[in-house]
Structures are given as structure tokens and as C-alpha cells.
């Protein structure tokens, strides 16, 4: 008997559960589509024999429709009435999910087919929870279910006051593994792990409220994440003090009247010497690759292979790998080893500039080639540095110590001093780890004039930006400052905000965008590029890309197309559209709140928001 095999037909599964009196059940399936299929299949071959319940469902839904007209004529309507089953997942609009939840708690459904997302947040328990697998589907494929996900699911089994017992049933499925489920069921709950992080919004608000970086830092150090850090810092401080004490005692016992700083200084010099020695390039290739790492960067053109005749414009260079465009516009990605030469100018990464860059390199290539370093040059530099260090070590010792005995002790204390230094560095690093992300953001904000880094003050500009509770506030702020929003038609404004707030990789249909919209999106993207370039320079992760498909749908929606039409045209799932429009509307309302600083844009966004946040989006 196989445990891993295709899922049972949904009707068979329900009949089997029914045979054991295990209904109503929530059946967890990996994808939205599987949920919809399972519900329709079950409804087709399964007719609720209880006429009264069928009638009750019909009445219930009719009453519900009066308050939520958007569920009228839903494509799963009959599935529910006839079969007494439903599918429930994020692809449905909230009102539809609500009616299902209500039907379930009224005892009018036998089964709900749901994706795991349902398990979090919404509360509609059933007698039985059915798992069709021990894996979950994620954007990047299958991954094992986590203990807390399983807990969320089993949390739906057993209705308080209505069931004596709740059940979790592992049913056949290709990813089924009862042994693993058994294991997971016994795992104690996960600890809460802090996700504290720096954002522009938090930084601006806190700095404006407290008026100094030190106080922002102090708030960051009150985070739950920092609590762990501070415990580790205390431990490290203790071990550092111990090392210090050891050194002091050893010096005293040897009768050496020298400060502890000499011992630590020697350790530092020796450490530097060791690092330098280790890093010293040994071969020509090593020198070359190290040089490539420095000079190959976005905006530069490189030649591939020995001849270097094939050219590539670099857009990204990381961990010894390069990405970029060839002259024909196709993309290329290859390791540093394949690079033959590097040309010195750094070009802008815009389409027309890229073409010009290639022409430029073709025209005066030889004079632009960066000279490669030679092993002997690199070697000479390092040797010189080593000599300086050796001199310093010499000077440190005889200058302060005349007895041979003390010199010996200092050398013996070397490892203890090393411990001391290591702990100090670690303490410093931990302290910085919380603050650094804020500092990076502060510097970026300063470049764009939202805060004054030297004065540690939020500027007038920064004050309104602090009020903008939105994804990527800096990008939107720059768009406002550049007057982009004033020059747009209302629909385009909706499109831009949708492109910004939508999930990066979700598809909302391929609606055609007219030229004006494309132009404004391109301008928005340009601003985005400037912002991202500064962020990149300050070590901040690049932001996700704009979602043009969302823009298309939002432009149409803001233009007055009705709901069923937009669903049909985009072929997107209702729930996805709903969430995207709702988030777009919220983002627009945020801008609409900037009446004082940007009255024109605020007025316009307010009216666009109204167009976006109409029924059924509320």
C-alpha cells in the first residue's frame, strides 16, 4: 500500500470521511487551482441529500447578497448550494470568503478546500482537518511544511462547544509523509524571533521626534533583537575583562612596569602583519582577479576572452560574477575569469547611453583600456608595508622594556591579548549592527535633502515624507518633488501607484498601456533608478521592480471599467485584483494626506483614490 500517491478524488475523500463521521472538514491543498477544482468536482458528483440544508444555504446566500452585492452570480455559487462544499483561498474577494466562513460556522457546509494561507488569521474551525501532503508550495517550488504552519492548520480541528474531539487526517498525496507529520506534531512551538529593521519612515519619525541620532539609536537598542545582542555583549565584556585581568597579573608577577596597552599594541601589530602576509597575492592570476573585483562595476564595458573583441556592458558584478548586455541587446552572465580587458569610462545604464557606450569603445578602444596591474608592483607595495610593521614592532619592544624577561612575558601574553582584541571587535560589531542600517538610510535621505546629516535634523521635506506611510516612500517623495504627479492624468496616477504597490511577480493580465501611461511609468522608473543607485552606493538592497501589468489593470479600473469586466479582461484572480486595488487606493490616500506640502498632487490623488476605492473595493 503506497502512502505517496495522487490525491484521492475529492468526492471519494469526502465520502470516506463521511463514513467515519469526520465531516465537516477543512481539506488543505497546495494551490488555489486545486482548491477550486476539488470543490467543483466534489459538487458535481456529490449531491447533498438533505434538501433542507440546500434550502438553508440558498436562503443564507440570498440574505448575504443584499449586503454584499459583489458576490451575486459568483462562479462557485452552485458548488456551494448543490454540493455543500466550497473553496477558500486568497484568490477570492473578501466578501466571498466571508460568506463561506459564515456558512461554515452556521453548520451548512460539509467541506472547505483551502490553501494554507487560510490557516493564519481567519477563524472557522471544522471537526476534521485533512492534510494532503507534508510539503507546502512556495513561489520557488515545494518545501517542507514547518511545525508552526502545521500547528496553524491543526488549530482549525475541533469546534469548541460543538465537537468532543477534533481530528487531523493525513490523506493520500504525492507529497504525503505521515512519519514527518507525526514528528512535526510533537515539535514544541517556535520561539518568537524579532524582525526589527530600519526603514525610512521609522528613521524620519524618530529623528523628528527626538532630535538626535543617539536617541534613534537608543530606541533601536530597545528592540527585542537587540536584547539578544546585549546579552552577548555582556558576555563578551566579561571575557574581555578576564583577559585584561590576566595580562595585568602576568605583568605584575614578572615585575614589569609597563602599561597593558603595550601588550595589546603588539598584538595589533602582529595581527596586521599576519593579515597582510596572508593577503599578499602570490600569482599573476591572483593579482589580476583581485584587480577585476575592484574595477569591474556597473556602467563599465568589458571585453570577453583573450582578444577582448566581444563587448559587454556590465549591469551587476558580484562574487566574481558579472551580468550585463551584449551589443545586440541580449543579456549575458559569466564569471570574471572570462574577462580579457576592462575599459575605463563609467557610462549611464540607460538604453541610449548603452548604445553610445559601445560606439565609444569601438571607436577609441585602445586608449580606453585600463592598464592591468603587474605582480611585481603589487608585491613591492606589500613588502614595503610589512617592513614598516616590523619596524614598529621593534620600536615598541625595546623602547619601553629593558629587561629581556619582560619581552618574553609580552610575547607569551600574545594569545591572551588576541582574545581581548577579538572580544572588543565583536562588541563593536554587535553595537554597530543595529545602528548601521539606520545610518545607511540616513545618508541616503541626506543626499536627497530629507534630513541634514551633520545637524541630525529632519528637514521640512523630511517632515512630510515622514507622514507618508507607504512602500518605498523615498521614491514617491522624489516623484512628488519632481512634479511628476502634477503632470499626470488621474488614471496614470492610479497606474503608477499600482505598479509600485503590487507584488513584484504577480500577473494582472496583459492589458495594453497607452503611450502616455508608458511615458509616465518610464519617468517614474527613471526617478526610481536614481534613488536605487544611491541606495546601492550605501549598501542598501535594491528595491523590487515596478509591476507594469498591475499598472494596466489599475488604469482601466480607475477609468471606470466595472468589476466583472476587469476580471474578465485581466483574467487575474478576483482576490489578487482586489488586494492590489485596495493597496493602491490606500497608497493614494496617503499622498492625498499631503495637503499642506503638495496641495495640487494631494487634491488629485484624493479624487483618484475615490475612483479606485469604489465597490467592491472598500
Amino acid at each position, binding site marked *: 500500500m503506497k502512502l505517496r500517491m495522487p490525491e484521492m478524488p475529492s468526492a*471519494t475523500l469526502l465520502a470516506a470521511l463521511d463514513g467515519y463521521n469526520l465531516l465537516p472538514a477543512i481539506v488543505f491543498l497546495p494551490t488555489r487551482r486545486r482548491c477550486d477544482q476539488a470543490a467543483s468536482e466534489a459538487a458535481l458528483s456529490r449531491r447533498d441529500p438533505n434538501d433542507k440544508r440546500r434550502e438553508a444555504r440558498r436562503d443564507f446566500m440570498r440574505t448575504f447578497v443584499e449586503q454584499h452585492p459583489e458576490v451575486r452570480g459568483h462562479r462557485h455559487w452552485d458548488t456551494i448550494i448543490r454540493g455543500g462544499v466550497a473553496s477558500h483561498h486568497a484568490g477570492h474577494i473578501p466578501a466571498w470568503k466571508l460568506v463561506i466562513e459564515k456558512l461554515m460556522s452556521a453548520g451548512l457546509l460539509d467541506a472547505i478546500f483551502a490553501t494554507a494561507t487560510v490557516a493564519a488569521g481567519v477563524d472557522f474551525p471544522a471537526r476534521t482537518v485533512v492534510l494532503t501532503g507534508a510539503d507546502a508550495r512556495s513561489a520557488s517550488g515545494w518545501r517542507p511544511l514547518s511545525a508552526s504552519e502545521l500547528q496553524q492548520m491543526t488549530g482549525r480541528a475541533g469546534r469548541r*462547544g*460543538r465537537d468532543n474531539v477534533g481530528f487531523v487526517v493525513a490523506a493520500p498525496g504525492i507529497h504525503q509523509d505521515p512519519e514527518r507529520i507525526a514528528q512535526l506534531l510533537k515539535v514544541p512551538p517556535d520561539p518568537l524571533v524579532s524582525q526589527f529593521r530600519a526603514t525610512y519612515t521609522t528613521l524620519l519619525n*524618530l529623528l523628528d521626534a527626538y532630535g538626535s541620532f543617539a536617541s534613534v539609536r537608543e530606541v533601536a537598542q530597545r528592540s527585542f533583537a537587540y536584547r539578544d545582542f546585549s546579552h552577548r555583549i555582556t558576555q563578551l565584556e566579561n571575557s574581555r575583562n578576564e583577559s585584561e585581568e590576566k595580562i595585568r597579573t602576568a605583568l605584575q608577577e614578572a615585575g614589569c612596569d609597563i602599561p597593558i596597552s603595550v601588550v595589546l599594541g603588539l598584538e595589533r601589530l602582529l595581527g596586521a602583519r599576519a593579515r597582510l602576509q596572508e593577503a599578499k597575492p602570490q600569482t599573476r592570476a591572483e593579482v589580476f582577479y583581485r584587480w577585476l573585483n575592484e574595477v569591474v562595476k556597473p556602467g563599465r564595458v568589458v571585453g570577453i576572452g583573450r582578444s577582448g573583441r566581444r563587448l559587454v556592458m556590465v549591469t551587476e558584478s558580484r562574487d566574481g560574477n558579472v551580468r550585463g548586455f551584449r551589443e545586440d541587446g541580449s543579456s549575458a552572465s559569466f564569471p570574471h575569469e572570462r574577462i580579457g580587458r576592462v575599459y575605463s569610462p563609467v557610462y549611464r545604464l540607460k538604453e541610449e547611453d548603452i548604445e553610445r557606450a559601445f560606439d565609444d569603445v569601438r571607436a577609441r578602444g585602445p586608449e580606453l583600456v585600463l592598464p592591468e596591474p603587474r605582480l611585481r608592483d603589487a608585491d613591492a607595495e606589500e613588502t614595503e608595508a610589512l617592513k614598516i610593521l616590523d619596524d614598529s614592532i621593534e620600536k615598541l619592544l625595546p623602547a619601553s622594556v629593558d629587561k629581556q624577561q619582560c619581552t618574553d612575558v609580552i610575547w607569551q601574553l600574545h594569545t591572551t591579548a588576541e582574545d581581548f582584541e577579538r572580544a572588543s571587535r565583536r562588541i563593536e560589531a554587535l553595537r554597530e549592527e543595529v545602528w548601521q542600517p539606520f545610518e545607511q538610510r540616513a545618508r541616503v535621505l541626506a543626499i536627497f535633502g530629507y534630513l541634514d546629516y551633520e545637524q541630525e535634523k529632519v528637514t521640512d521635506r523630511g517632515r512630510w515624507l515622514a507622514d507618508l506611510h507607504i512602500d518605498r516612500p523615498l521614491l514617491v517623495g522624489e516623484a512628488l518633488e519632481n512634479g511628476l504627479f502634477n503632470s499626470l492624468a488621474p488614471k496614470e496616477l492610479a497606474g503608477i501607484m499600482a505598479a509600485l504597490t503590487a507584488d513584484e511577480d504577480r500577473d494582472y493580465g496583459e492589458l495594453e498601456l497607452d503611450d502616455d501611461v508608458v511615458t509616465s511609468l518610464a519617468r517614474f522608473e527613471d526617478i526610481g533608478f536614481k534613488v536605487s543607485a544611491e541606495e546601492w552606493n550605501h549598501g542598501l538592497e535594491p528595491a523590487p521592480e515596478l509591476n507594469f501589468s498591475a499598472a494596466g489593470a489599475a488604469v482601466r479600473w480607475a477609468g471606470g471599467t466595472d468589476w466583472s469586466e476587469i476580471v474578465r479582461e485581466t483574467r487575474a484572480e478576483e482576490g489578487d485584483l482586489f488586494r492590489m486595488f485596495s493597496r493602491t487606493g490606500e497608497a493614494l490616500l496617503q499622498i492625498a494626506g499631503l495637503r499642506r506640502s503638495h496641495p495640487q498632487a494631494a487634491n488629485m490623488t484624493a479624487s483618484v483614490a475615490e475612483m479606485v476605492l469604489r465597490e467592491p473595493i472598500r
Partner: protein
Amino acid sequence: MAFVRGKNGKRWDKRRSHGRRVTEKPASKTDHGANERTTRVVPPSREVKRLLEGIGTPRPTPFKPDPFQLEAIAALEYEDVLVTAPTGSGKTWIAREEIRRLLDSGRRAWYTSPLKALTNSKYQEFIDEFGAAKVGILTGDRKENSDAPLIVGTTEIYRNQLFDSLRGGSEVSADLVVLDEAHYLADEERGHVWEEAIILTPPRIRLLLLSATIGNAHEFALWLEEIRGVRCGVITGPPKRPVPLRSAVMLPDRRLLPLFNESGNLNPEIVKLAADERRSDRR
């Protein structure tokens, strides 16, 4: 308020035996579903009987708060409280009773939840409970009765109000803040908002955190005490689930097997099936 458990549960009780139904001949593709009611019932094995023992609806009993609920209410008199308990074990009851107590004495409360859908349904629930005049709602796109003594809203909006009040805007006028689904603090995307809300809530405001079961409740509470300078009690929900959970495996032939045996170990029959499967996979 007393309510009666187990409204609509009755209909399941007498209809079914616990027997296993076996189709006379193998079900063809179109054959499952409605036709399966013509199957005969074979008596279930002893272990399946034990697995299913007691299945059904409990007799309605008048509602009586659990000791942990009362304990939480009592603790809120003099300290912040972190309640950790599984879903459906009655955390909301604690919040509702405490809010009622406050409203009755003319004080104010904020109730935050992570999802707009939850916020909307809580809003309705509180209106039904306390009357529309006493409740307001604040989400990204909804603002109603925002001066009401009880505000329901998303955690983001609450955090934003804290920012505003720190920057000299409107004061957050609440005597109690309830953070529902407080374990969202560990959410990768939005968790930092919960942390900021906790850090920035003035210590004079009582905090009630409602969380799913977590592995480090005491450490979490210690952190709250350290940063707020207010004692924080940890109330752990009932050690057992409000409704006990049993686990089973359904085999492709629709047989049901308990996942664990009586001593709580993995059912040997399942171990054997899994081993067989691994062997046949290798072949």
C-alpha cells in the same frame, strides 16, 4: 454574558455508524460520490473504534470562563499581560471583558489586529457588544467614529499614531492597548511594526498581548519589562487544547489508521508501510 455552546452541532450525531464502507467493486472514475451510499459496512477494527471514540457534539453547557481567562483579567489590574494560547481557546474573551470594564468606567482602549478583514469583523463584533456610539475603526482606507472610546484598527495605524504623538501631534488617548495576534512580531515583512508599537507605547498605557503559543513567552515578557519598566505577567492558556486533537492516516483504500499507538509512538503499521514504500521506490 452567558451563552450556550453547541448550536447547530446536533445533526451529525445519530446519522452515521463508525463502520468502514467498502465498495463491492473497484470504483470507476465516474462511480465515486453519490453512488457510494450503496456500499456495505464492515465493522471497524478495535483501534479505529478507539480512535473515533466519543466523536460528536458535547451537550450544551452554559459558558463558564476558564481559570486562565479569569487569571488574566485579575492580572490586568496591576500589570501588562501576555496571553499565549492556541486559537479558539478564548483569548478574545479576555480582551472583551477588560474593554467592557474600562468602557463602563469611562476609560478608553485601542484594539489592534494584523489584517483588515479581522479588523472589520472585530469592529462589527464590538458594535454588537458595546453599541455603535462607543466604537470607531481606523484602517488604511476606513475611518469611522475616530473619537470613540474604543478604537479598532490595524497595528500599522496604531504605530503611526504613536509616531504622530511623539512628534507633537495628537495624543494617543488610551488606557489599554490590546495587540491581537501579537506573534505577528515575527512576521518577516511587517513584524517590525509590532515591535515599534510595543517600544513606543507609553508605560502608563496598559498592554494586553494576545499571542498564539510561542516557545519563548517568558523571555518575551522579560523584554517587555526591561523596555517598559512595567511588570508583565505571562498567562499560558490551558495546557491542553480546548478540544482534544487526534491524528490519523487515511490509506488509498480509505482505511483509517491511528497515526500514533496507545503509548504515543508512531503506529508500527505506518512505519512498516513507509518502509515498504521506500523499498519499492528504490527498485
